[in-house]
Structures are given as structure tokens and as C-alpha cells.
């Protein structure tokens, strides 16, 4: 039996529909790719699961054949298109693009905004999507926004402070902005540092400069590599002194 007919039989046994001829790699001749439809002819039936495809690949591998798949998944594409249309209609001045993946009862939606949007608007979009997915009986919904400029989170502030401490709130803001973070204003930064101080992660010196407490350092941890924050700090100190 040839490799091709062996694979064809494997696929037929699992009732998998080929979208076109099996492809044999032009260099590594023991490698094949099957273009398959992700759903069955009958719309009510689900298409092959990842488990089924892995089992077929494993069976092929036992015969010395490497088998990969390209899934022609019209339904997922249509569904992604519907979510895009919904978002474009409801948030037309805000959303540039989106991409949705649904795996069983879990949905992930990436939303690319046209411009920076405030947290309230983000929450509105999240709520809108969660409500929509609830109608489809999907409760595990994650929405991710893709920004070029982000407001620094507490961990990001601590990491930056670790490198350049001791420093003033203004120096810390500048350092974050150099990394393309958006610091709303000095008052915002003062509040953020105050919250970290109350949480025991940051210490404020009498001269208004800040540095990390032992607890703050412990929370961040370190790593043994060329990108270690300890090395970055040593380099930053050297730069400061020179």
C-alpha cells in the first residue's frame, strides 16, 4: 500500500472530508498535508476534533509518515465576520478590527481600537461581547485590547522603578514614557506610587524620591540571564554616574 492510499484510508475511517488532493512535500517525501473541511456535510454534526486529528497523525507517524492538516473552516470565518460586523456597527468610531476564536465553551476576542480608548469604553465593549456570547451559551469570554500606548500597570511601574531607583515621580514618568507607556499626568503617577507604598512595595524618602522595599523586590523576583533586571540596574547606575 502506498503512503497516499494509507492516509486516505485513515481519513476515510474517521469520516474526514478532504477539500482537495493530499499534498506530498516536494523535498521531504515522507511529509504530507491534508486540506480538510472542519465541518461535516451535515451542519448539525461537529467536524473532526483536535484529538481525532492528533490520533490520525500519530497513526501515520507509526508508519513513518509525517501528516499535517490545513483546516478549511468556513463556519469559524463566518462567525468571526459576524462579531466584526457587530463591533463595527455598535462601536464604529472605536473598533478598527477584531478576531475571534471559539474553542468549545471558551471565546477569545482580540479588539484593535482605532485610537486610545478609556477603561469605561473597554468595559462597555467587554460587557457587550459577554452578553452576546451568553446568548450562545458561552460564559468563558476573554476580551483583549491591542494598544500601541498603554497606561502602565503596577507591575510595570515597579519594574521601571527597580531599574532607576532612587528617583522622583517625574523621573519615573519620563522613564515609562521612553518605553512608550502613557502616563496620564503627575497626579496620576503620585496616586499610583502612593498605592504601591501603602501596599508595602515602595518606600518614599524624605526628599520625595522612591525606591522598592524588600517586599517589592521579592514580589518582582529576578532571573538569571543576560536580560536579568539586576544587570539592567547595574547598567542604569553606571549611566547615571557617568
Amino acid at each position: 500500500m502506498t503512503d497516499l492510499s494509507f492516509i486516505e484510508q485513515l481519513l476515510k475511517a474517521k469520516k474526514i472530508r478532504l477539500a482537495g488532493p493530499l499534498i506530498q512535500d516536494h523535498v521531504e517525501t515522507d511529509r504530507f498535508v491534508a486540506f480538510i473541511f472542519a465541518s461535516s456535510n451535515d451542519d448539525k454534526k461537529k467536524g473532526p476534533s483536535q484529538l481525532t486529528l492528533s490520533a490520525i497523525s500519530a497513526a501515520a507517524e507509526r508508519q513513518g509518515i509525517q501528516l499535517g492538516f490545513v483546516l478549511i473552516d468556513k463556519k469559524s470565518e463566518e462567525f468571526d465576520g459576524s462579531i466584526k460586523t457587530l463591533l463595527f456597527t455598535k462601536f464604529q468610531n472605536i473598533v478598527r478590527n477584531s478576531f475571534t476564536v471559539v474553542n468549545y465553551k471558551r471565546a477569545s476576542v482580540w479588539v484593535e481600537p482605532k485610537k486610545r480608548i478609556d477603561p469605561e469604553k473597554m468595559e462597555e465593549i467587554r460587557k457587550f461581547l459577554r452578553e452576546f456570547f451568553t446568548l450562545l451559551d458561552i460564559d468563558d469570554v476573554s476580551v483583549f485590547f491591542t494598544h500601541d500606548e498603554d497606561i502602565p500597570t503596577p507591575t510595570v511601574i515597579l519594574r521601571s522603578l527597580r531599574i532607576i531607583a532612587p528617583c522622583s515621580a517625574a523621573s519615573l514618568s519620563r522613564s515609562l514614557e521612553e518605553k512608550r507607556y502613557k502616563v496620564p499626568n503627575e497626579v496620576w503617577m503620585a496616586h499610583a506610587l502612593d498605592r504601591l507604598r501603602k501596599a508595602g512595595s515602595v518606600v518614599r524618602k524624605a526628599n520625595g524620591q522612591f525606591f522598592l522595599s524588600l517586599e517589592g523586590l521579592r514580589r518582582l523576583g529576578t532571573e538569571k540571564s543576560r536580560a536579568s533586571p539586576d544587570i539592567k540596574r547595574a547598567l542604569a547606575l553606571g549611566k547615571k554616574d557617568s
Partner: protein
Amino acid sequence: MHAVGHHLRTYAHHNAVAERDAFARSAFNRYYYGCFLLVRSTLIEINVPPNNIKHGKIKEILEGKIAKKLESAKRQAQKNEDGTLVNKIDGGLRAIEPLQRLIEEARQVREVADYKPEIEVSFNSPDGFSLNGLDINSAHRWEETVRTLLASLKSAWRDADD
């Protein structure tokens, strides 16, 4: 590259009757390269050596060092109870699977387009054509999907690596 792919697609569909198969398969090729180059430039931005970025190796790169770094940053953010950062890094981590799957499938389509001339392009739909079952409209959407997923990955990486 995406624009070139789009031009070839339009040309194949409306004008090039004699050699429309060649124009159509070149459209698939350019759509793939548009995506590959986007991924390549992002990987270079996040310090992957250019020589390591080869066709067929994207999955290995994304699921290796990059995923590990993001996982570690996510654990750190969880320790700090930094929900915003956990969500952002999670966005990058979850983007890896659809991104590597899309780029790998696009590569396979490009292999068919370039090396399997015996598999002809099928001009059977009113608004396009397909190759081995994959519609040109699907290939056209690859780029915007890759852009969105890469933006999430880049954003997560910056916070993990700063």
C-alpha cells in the same frame, strides 16, 4: 506584499483569461509572504535573531522562548495581583496558537501554489477562486488577522520584557 496579492487576485479574476491560473496562484503566494514578513519583523523587534526566523520554524519560535517568557511574566503579575497586566499577557499568550496555526496553514497553501501546478486553481465561485479547497477571500483576510494577533503579542511582550 498584501497589496500585490490583492492586485494579482483582481487581475486573475477579471482579466487574465489565458494565464489566470498563474496569476491566481501568485496571489496566494504574495498573501502568504505578506503575513510571513509581518511576523518576521515583529520577531526581530522582540529580539529574535533574523537568521533563526525561517519558514516552517515560526511555531517553534513562538511556542519556545517567547511563550516561556510570557508565562513567567504572567506568574509575576499574578503574584502582584495586577489583573490588567495578567489580561494583557494572557492576550499575547492566547494569540500564539491561532497565529502559528494561521501562518503554518498559509505556508502550506503557498507550497501548493508554488510547487503543485498539477492542482489547478478552481474558478468556480462568482466572487473569487480557490486552491485545494481554500478560498482566496480567506487568504485575503490572513493579513488583518495576523496584524491584530501580532499587536497583542507585541504589547504583551513589551510588558514582559521591560
